[in-house]
């Protein structure tokens, strides 16, 4: 960008002042002088400019009170400085950005437009300034922000900056461009006025007709009456008369109009919105072309050339941005605010090395491709579809998965696209909601993922089931107990001390989450269930108490041959491993104390054990 600086020096100093005055007089937003580049003939680049548009009010207090004029000048200089610092940073990304008085966040959209303009370069015949220079005639562009990029390459930039009117006319050794955020219909007298003001000094502009500030809704243009054009024509033809005291004005058709300059030099600049809240209405339609108004006064004929109105339904501008989705809005603002980089252009530095790539040609490939019999994207598909399954040989694969994969490859397309998406999405959301409800019903750990929720629910249900069963059988026993009288006092006393005779206590403390290993001898008994059955007629009493996996069975019944074996058998059927048996026989009554342990994974209920033993006892 060094040439930019050099170029500025070639621009006469007076020109800057004239620019300032000119734009202030007509109260437009900016003025730019595009000068013919010294380094590259046939190319227009930034010469000088003055920004007269809106600025963001600065919160910092100015050290020196400047009047409005000086403020404006200072602002323009600051903008230039900022541009230079940013472009310096761009060319050497390693270096720290040199500090400028302004930073990108301080600029309004229009200022930003002005700043980005500094990076533009036009060939003769290209872009608004280029065509102005080549034709030698002024160009007045209304609705610049809707213009096609062929006509006005900065149209998208203009759109964000709300620049609606741009005027270019050749002047001195370059082109002067003026722009404004209002829609000003064409007035060639304005251009004339500007030119005269360059020589005569400050004047006020009195318009021949009122300047309508048309809204953006209408696309009506105000075609200037041909007569006005006609009379202006004379003056247009000789724009040089008014300027004296400057460098000799060469006619626009000067040797700089070199045809056939390659297009490679022009740079379409890229940039980013710096606003805090970006507009959602950025037009991304690739082929948008609202009507533009362009009247080019030709030497030959006075008929204004204008592009026809293109009817544009503006369908493309309506975006599907879910504006009712506040979550996505926050995501977007987080993403787009965090990026502060300014990239000024896709510089492909042509270093000493020649590129491996060749320019793309439409029918580029001389040798045609061999017929591809194999699967497309073969390796990629293998990496994604097959390699992961190599790790889990068949563990995760299920017939459904395979089927789904094949279906994907077969590209079934029988579902209605839009409805499917929406209903799927609703279904997913419903499922998530239900999971949340389930979580609230189930006492569980803090984990909130679906798997844990289901796990905890299963455990809880099993737990509740156990409790219900125990409660029910306990209720039976209470009824039964009331009707029978106890026989064996001492027997009962041997049972747990925590409760009275004839009382059946069920103490169940289930704390499935506390899986600490505790000693059996400890006081904490996780599950304690006692079944008491006294049958006086048969002298059968069964007491079963369960401590975790250990059963303590106290059993008495009338003795008969082989009963001990049967008892042990019955217990082993229930997966109980008898570890110690104390037995004694008195008066024909066998009393047993058996300690047994579980050798399976599921613990049988004490009720089941009791029933089994009773069956044995009653078999006589």
């Amino acid at each position: 960008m060094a040439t930019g600086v050099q170029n500025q020096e070639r621009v006469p100093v007076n020109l800057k002042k004239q620019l300032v005055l000119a734009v202030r007089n007509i109260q437009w937003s900016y003025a730019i002088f595009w000068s013919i580049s010294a380094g590259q003939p046939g190319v227009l680049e930034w010469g000088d400019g003055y920004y007269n548009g809106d600025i963001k009010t600065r919160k910092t207090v100015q050290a020196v009170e400047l009047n409005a004029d000086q403020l404006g000048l200072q602002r323009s200089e600051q903008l230039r400085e900022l541009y230079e610092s940013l472009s310096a940073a761009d060319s050497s990304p390693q270096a720290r950005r040199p500090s400028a008085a302004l930073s990108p966040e301080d600029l309004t959209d229009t200022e930003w437009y002005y700043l980005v303009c500094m990076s533009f370069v036009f060939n003769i015949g290209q872009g608004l300034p280029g065509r102005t220079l080549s034709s030698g005639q002024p160009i007045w562009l209304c609705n610049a922000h809707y213009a096609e990029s062929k006509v006005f390459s900065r149209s998208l930039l203009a759109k964000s900056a709300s620049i609606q009117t741009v005027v270019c006319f050749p002047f001195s050794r370059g082109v002067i461009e003026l722009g404004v955020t209002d829609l000003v219909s064409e007035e060639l007298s304005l251009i004339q006025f500007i030119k005269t003001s360059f020589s005569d000094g400050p004047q006020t502009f009195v318009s021949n007709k009122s300047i309508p500030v048309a809204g953006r809704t209408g696309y009506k243009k105000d075609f200037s009456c041909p007569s006005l054009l006609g009379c202006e024509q004379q003056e247009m033809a000789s724009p040089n008369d008014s300027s004296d005291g400057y460098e000799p004005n060469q006619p626009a058709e000067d040797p700089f109009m070199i045809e056939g300059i390659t297009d490679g030099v022009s740079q379409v600049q890229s940039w980013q919105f710096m606003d805090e809240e970006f507009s959602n209405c950025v037009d991304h339609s690739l082929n948008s072309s609202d009507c533009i108004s362009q009247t080019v006064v030709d030497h030959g004929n006075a008929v204004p050339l204008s592009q026809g109105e293109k009817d544009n339904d503006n369908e493309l501008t309506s975006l599907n941005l879910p504006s009712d989705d506040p979550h996505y809005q926050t995501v977007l603002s987080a993403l787009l605010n965090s990026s502060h980089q300014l990239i000024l252009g896709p510089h492909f530095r042509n270093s000493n090395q020649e590129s491996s790539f060749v320019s793309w040609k439409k029918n580029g490939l001389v040798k045609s491709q061999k017929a591809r019999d194999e699967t497309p994207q073969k390796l990629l598909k293998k990496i994604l579809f097959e390699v992961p399954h190599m790790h889990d040989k068949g563990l995760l694969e299920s017939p459904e998965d395979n089927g789904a994969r094949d279906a994907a490859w077969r590209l079934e397309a029988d579902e209605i696209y839009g409805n499917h998406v929406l209903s799927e999405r609703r279904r997913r959301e419903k499922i998530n909601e239900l999971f949340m409800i389930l979580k609230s019903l189930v006492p569980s750990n803090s984990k909130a993922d679906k798997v844990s929720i289901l796990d905890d629910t299963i455990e809880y249900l099993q737990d509740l089931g156990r409790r219900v069963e125990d409660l029910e059988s306990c209720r039976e026993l209470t009824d039964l107990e009331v009707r029978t009288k106890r026989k064996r006092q001492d027997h009962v006393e041997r049972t747990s001390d925590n409760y009275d005779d004839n009382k059946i206590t069920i103490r169940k403390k289930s704390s499935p989450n506390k899986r600490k290993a505790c000693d059996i001898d400890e006081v904490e008994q996780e599950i304690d269930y006692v079944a008491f059955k006294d049958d006086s007629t048969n002298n059968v009493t069964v007491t079963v108490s369960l401590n975790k996996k250990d059963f303590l069975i106290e059993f008495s019944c009338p003795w008969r041959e082989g009963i001990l074996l049967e008892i042990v058998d019955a217990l082993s059927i229930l997966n109980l491993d008898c570890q110690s048996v104390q037995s004694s026989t008195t008066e024909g009554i066998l009393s047993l104390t058996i300690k047994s342990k579980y050798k399976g994974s599921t613990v049988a209920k004490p009720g089941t054990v009791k029933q089994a033993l009773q069956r044995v006892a009653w078999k006589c």
Partner: protein
Amino acid sequence: MENSTQESHLRSDNSISYESPYPLYAMALSSMPSRMNLNHQRIALGSFIEDYPNRVDIISFDPETLSIKTHPTLSFDHPYPPTKLMFRPNGKSPSSSSSDLLASSGDYLRLWEVRETSIEPFSVFNNSKTSEFCAPLTSFDWNDVEPKRIGTSSIDTTCTIWDIEKGVVETQLIAHDKEVYDIAWGEAKVFASVSADGSVRIFDLRDKEHSTIIYESPQPDTPLLRLAWNKQDLRYMATILMDSNKVVILDIRSPTMPVAELERHRASVNAIAWAPLSCKHICSAGDDTQALIWELPTVAGPNGIDPLSMYSAGSEINQLQWSAAQPDWIAIAFSNKMQLLKV
């Protein structure tokens, strides 16, 4: 540069080749220069052998002398082909550690410490004990804003976010209805993923309950195979569909409607990479043996967008990486070869 295309792949002075003993798929370019010579670019190459024993080799490239140096000691075994390799990104603050870190995905996410003469396994991230969801990984992405964060995508429909410094899972999300094929970070806490269900979704770690679908493949259930997020301009993302020659460019601000479809490949596309320093350039490579560089205009013409330049390789190009450390170089992998192309 009016050379005919026939010669493009014969020009050995401008593209540097390396031939490997086995077919290659995964490839990574280091963003940290080697300590010996600051200009050297380290490249990790993962083999694709459809069997258990696979290898990852590291070679280095010197752009000054245009030469490639192999390092037999910088090599390690990997169970089955690695699905992706990636070096630790530099991030906003230059890393102070002296050795480079390489991450690989396959059955698990693994980190390897690349020293001057050896590679040591650094850690294995295996969450099978703490989660039901611990399936092999299809891809991963290293967050360059927050380099302690790596996001992985898996065939069990989940994406897992790891904190690699602590070695724990930050979070695990069920991202899609089907297998997730690729994941890409946008910002420290925002990532996007693509899946066999044909959707591109954006997730924000600050709001895990919600995700936004920003694109769905036009034929429902056409898997989207790869995703790339433009790190210079976070508005844009690129994705490729299965069996398609199109590169779909998306604007995150306008969901469901792609901003552009780059349709100049003559066969299906296998890999995409945005330019590391420019926000408008993207490179794509495919089965038509071509690597195309595209420049995205602000307004497209009526006939679609044409690429800027192209390169023809010897066979289908399976992998493409655009070097962040040396932005003038693009690495491609096809069959057994790796080539470095000057942009």
